């Protein structure tokens, strides 16, 4: 479990996050929502202390992460970042195994445990046939699944995902969330997912947080957080709410 208490973050002197208190509980998905520039990515990066936190504390499993090394933090938290490209040819298996860095010495080669964790992640993410393929040969959806598989292979208790469904088609969007949810339930891990899709959040998240100008505007179960007033205040758009006839979850429809 990750617990942030009153954290503030400044980037080049400008306050980006102010007094944020949030928890990422095990066995649940926390959806992080908000308009562009609201501080969602910075929040996730503060969670694993890749950006410096200027005030407040972040506890990981009850330990103050301010006193943890990068290695120790990476043993607890793994990340699906927004896409990036490498100029060097890297195979899918190599990419996934790179997520096992903190489990071995830097000189060393992968142990049997590393290989089996990677294989399992490949299976979980429906990538069994892709182990030998090169990363730059994959489609957007396949690539994103590999990035998720690497985070899963790291076997951490917390998963942070930064817009994992951006640029994915409808079936891959749902697949991404189903994979994360299954992992949360089966392994008892907690996930924080940034998304712009309120309906995906409503369908898959146990809790949602709406960020506005670097502060928490509303947080709670999606059905409580997604109100026309909240959405109008955060996104500045009018929406119509009803229930998804298939799942019974809140459905958000734009009123243009």
């Amino acid at each position, binding site marked *: 479990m990750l617990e942030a208490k009153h954290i503030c973050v400044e980037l080049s002197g400008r306050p980006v996050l102010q007094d944020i208190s949030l928890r990422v509980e095990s066995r649940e998905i926390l959806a992080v929502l908000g308009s562009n520039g609201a501080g969602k990515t910075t929040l996730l990066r503060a969670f694993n202390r890749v950006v410096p936190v200027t005030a407040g504390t972040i506890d990981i499993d009850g330990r103050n992460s301010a006193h943890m090394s*990068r290695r120790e933090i990476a043993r607890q938290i*793994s990340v699906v*970042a927004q896409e*990036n490209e490498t100029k*060097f040819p890297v195979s899918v298996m*190599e990419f996934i195994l*790179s997520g096992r860095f*903190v489990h071995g010495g830097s*000189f060393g080669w992968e142990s049997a445990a590393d*290989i089996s964790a990677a294989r399992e992640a490949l299976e979980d993410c429906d990538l069994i046939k892709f182990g030998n393929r090169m990363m730059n040969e994959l489609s957007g959806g396949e690539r994103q699944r590999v990035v998720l598989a690497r985070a899963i292979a790291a076997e951490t208790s917390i998963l942070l995902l930064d817009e994992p469904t951006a640029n994915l088609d409808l079936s891959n969007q749902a697949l991404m969330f189903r994979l994360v949810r299954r992992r949360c339930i089966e392994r008892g891990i907690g996930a924080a997912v940034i998304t712009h899709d309120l309906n995906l959040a409503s369908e898959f998240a146990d809790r949602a947080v709406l960020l506005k100008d670097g502060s928490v505007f509303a947080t709670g179960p999606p059905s409580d957080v997604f109100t026309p007033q909240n959405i109008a205040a955060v996104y500045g758009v009018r929406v119509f709410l009803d229930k998804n006839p298939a799942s019974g979850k809140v459905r958000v429809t734009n009123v243009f």
Partner: protein
Amino acid sequence: MMVTRDHLKSRNRITVLLAACLVLSLGLALAVGSEHVAIFGPTDQQRAILFDIRMPRVFLGACVGASLAAAGAGLQALLRNPLAEPYLLGVSNGAALGTMLAFVVAGEYVFARPIFAIVGAGIASTVVFQMARSRSGMNTERLVLSGVIVTTFLSSIIVLLTTVLDAARLRSFTFWLLGDLSQSSYQGFYLTLFSAIGGTIVITSQARALNLMMIGERDALDFGVEVSRVRLIVFATASALVGTAVAASGSVGYVGLIVPHLLRLAIGSDNRLIIPLSAVAGAIFVVLADTAARTAIAPRELPVGAITALIGAPMFIYLLRRN
């Protein structure tokens, strides 16, 4: 797939193959030259040529090649750019300027040259790195351009220095600047051997972290790599490797570009293999290039750097276009 039994087998196979090639090329380099040396029952004079002139030169060439190729492979992973190379980034020129300053300031004191060269290489690589880094990250054009600027700036200072030095020294310096192994001694060899082996081990110790950094610096941070520490270790070690190599033999160019690139084509990008095997293959490459430099227009000699640049420059253009 990596780390399967097949992968291990091919890894061992290529290691054995390269080791055998190194032994063969060392043997060839010792056997041929402008003076004929009988392998069985050489005369005293032939023995002197073999042991006092040819052997230190060949062994030093191997160490220089190993140093430059391992440094190149490390810098490429660190800068996430297959075109990063000590000579092209101006690191070699920094070391060359350091060596010349040592010559002016400290004269014949042997350890001054490598020390000044390492400091020069360190300063040059830091400057290039800071120049190439921008808020939007580091792209190839910016890196290459920064390298060109630092190289030409240092070259002009070197030219200035050579004009101050007297004519007899000048000639040996112009040869040396292009990369020259003809002044080899056992003394230079031992220091370079120590640096080549030590430096390759240190950079290889960071290979798994470099694998992650090659994918992306942010990925590396997220997955537990102390990026700034790895960067410091690799920059410092690469500077030490280039510094000792340049102090011994001048700026032999393109070794750090050609060797890791060909290896990557053959065995993929895993730095745990690429860095140590680059050292072995770099040794082979420079030993063979220097053999060509000694024998192509015998009894006259070419600087070995001319041969490596002759092969390397077209390859650089090819890589740049493909990028």
